[in-house]
């Protein structure tokens, strides 16, 4: 029992509610949201440290004992993801202050930004399937509002599709919960792990597992279900797109990691499906990125391809693969949002995000160019940056498990990733200065780069000091692969 676990949910919820009443005061809005995100970072970092030294922490809400009440569980995976997402929220908030119009900030941007964090942190921390559905909905409805805010023609059209597809998949989530409740009579994840382990592994369990895969696959944009992502992530402004690209699909990946390591680890067919879809997702995603000629669209399609790697990691299902998946997940949260923010900077300078309309940024704004190059190389997996080590662990694990075909696909995807990143660099940063906005040359963007700098520093740090971080990931994977510690600490068994 540790009440600290609920704070990452409670802080943004309370502050968000308070902020609704201070709609017109810009300074109150900004200070309160920065303070609350700062508090979230402090609490979640302390929580991660506590979990690392003392083991898994749980909170029983309303003091109802575990299989009956709702529990919040912080293990290494969830607490470190909460810390990362809070950090990302702070970065995006500072970027938003410098790019957003006053009108957008006045129209409840801050409360919904904080409610989004409630949903994200809640999904990471909850130990109950139905509670997970509720936090998913909190996250989704805030994202619906953030994505359609501004009401441009394009934005309205694409957010409508985003809303409908996500709502349909949420309804299937309810149906999947209904099935699993019908079979086992419980919704507590630790209790489910015990009960499903005791049941005979019949086709019913496989059907439920695949139904959950459909739901989480839609949220995390894996192969046959990714079509909504590229257009809808193109619509919102850079700060919001960075937050969505960095976090929302990763919440889907987190739930896949959680459910398939904890609840359905016995079902071999699902892992085969994960492997096949992982390979297809990364390859088709990167082909989409190669064919695009728009800064933001390339990045959006790349999200799909990167999710493929993580799905493959879960599909391989060895401790090293899970460690690699987490490393890759953390790397991707950092790098992807940094790249989206760079797209925002380039758009701010040139007034366009289309690659064919801009070139020569390196001559006018050298710092933007070189920092972008570091981040892009990290995404492509060039050592000594962070992308390399995540992929390296995944590929070694794949070789050990004998999944040669999917490893070959992932290597080919890596080459194409490098190609599409270099396409952005060569067309928009090299060459003669050519921009639609005639004043573009003299625009100062130094202050915009400050929020991105910590992200770039982190990707370098994750690469150069890979040893301790990999050690941490291995311990985390150990905890996931052997769910007995999780089950015992939730159900209070000694």
């Amino acid at each position: 029992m540790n009440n600290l676990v609920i704070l990452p949910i409670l802080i943004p919820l309370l502050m968000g509610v308070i902020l609704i009443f201070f709609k017109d005061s810009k300074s109150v809005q900004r200070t309160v949201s920065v303070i609350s995100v700062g508090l979230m970072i402090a609490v979640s970092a302390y929580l991660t440290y506590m979990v690392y030294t003392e083991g898994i922490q749980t909170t029983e809400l309303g003091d109802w004992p575990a299989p009956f009440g709702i529990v919040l569980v912080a293990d290494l995976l969830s607490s470190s993801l909460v810390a990362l997402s809070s950090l990302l929220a702070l970065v995006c908030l500072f970027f938003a202050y410098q790019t957003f119009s006053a009108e957008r900030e006045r129209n409840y941007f801050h409360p919904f930004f904080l409610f989004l964090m409630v949903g994200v942190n809640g999904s990471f921390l909850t130990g109950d399937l139905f509670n997970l559905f509720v936090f998913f909905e909190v996250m989704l409805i805030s994202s619906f509002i953030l994505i359609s805010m501004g009401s441009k023609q394009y934005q309205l059209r694409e957010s409508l599709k985003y809303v409908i597809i996500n709502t349909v998949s949420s309804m299937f989530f309810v149906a999947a919960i209904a099935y699993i409740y019908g079979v086992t009579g419980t919704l507590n994840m630790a209790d489910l792990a015990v009960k499903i382990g005791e049941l005979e592994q019949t086709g019913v369990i496989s059907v439920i597992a695949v139904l959950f895969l459909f739901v989480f696959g839609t949220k995390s944009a894996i192969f046959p279900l990714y079509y909504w992502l590229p257009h809808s992530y193109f619509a919102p402004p850079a700060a919001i797109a960075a937050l969505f690209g960095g976090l929302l699909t990763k919440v889907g990946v987190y739930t896949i990691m959680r459910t398939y390591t904890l609840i359905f680890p016995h079902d071999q067919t699902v892992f085969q499906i994960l492997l096949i879809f992982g390979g297809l997702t990364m390859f088709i995603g990167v082909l989409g990125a190669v064919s695009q000629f728009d800064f933001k669209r390339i990045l959006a399609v790349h999200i799909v391809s990167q999710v493929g790697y993580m799905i493959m990691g879960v599909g391989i299902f060895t401790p090293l693969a899970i460690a690699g998946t987490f490393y890759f997940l953390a790397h991707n949260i950092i790098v992807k949002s940094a790249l989206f923010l760079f797209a925002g900077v380039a758009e701010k300078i040139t007034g366009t995000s289309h690659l064919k309309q801009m070139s020569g940024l390196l001559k006018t704004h050298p710092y933007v160019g070189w920092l972008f190059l570091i981040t892009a190389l990290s995404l492509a997996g060039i050592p000594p940056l962070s992308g390399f080590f995540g992929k390296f662990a995944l590929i070694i694990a794949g070789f050990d498990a004998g999944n040669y075909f999917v490893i070959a696909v992932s290597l080919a995807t890596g080459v194409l990733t490098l190609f599409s990143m270099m396409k952005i660099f060569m067309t928009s940063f090299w060459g003669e200065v050519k921009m639609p906005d005639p004043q573009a040359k003299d625009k100062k963007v130094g202050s915009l780069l400050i929020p991105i700098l910590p992200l770039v520093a982190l990707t370098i740090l994750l690469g150069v000091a890979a040893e301790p971080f990999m050690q941490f990931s291995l311990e985390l994977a150990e905890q996931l692969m052997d769910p007995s510690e999780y089950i015992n600490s939730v159900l209070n068994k000694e």
Partner: protein
Amino acid sequence: MEILMILTVGVLFTVATYMILSKSMLRVIIGVVILSHGAHLLFLTLSGLKQGAPPLLGEEASAYTDPLPQALILTAIVIGFGITAFMLVLAYRTYKAHKTDNLDELRGTEDE
């Protein structure tokens, strides 16, 4: 009774699928609403229809109906209500901005 309910759920899911695949924006939204009703009814049926006494009153009954699914479905209905309201407003704004509710015409073009 369970068989009848399951058949109703099947009909609701079929109707919802048909509506979601149609081209009119409003029909799609009604389809989503029907789908949510189907999912809730499925939950209620799968966790067992009324067995024994109501869960709250009296301590003598030998069997009680499981109260959890009803609480969960109530939560899901409230969430669904909020999302439906939001979807209707969004659809109306989209209709105003694009002057059409045909999803084929809302597909978008390559160069924008």
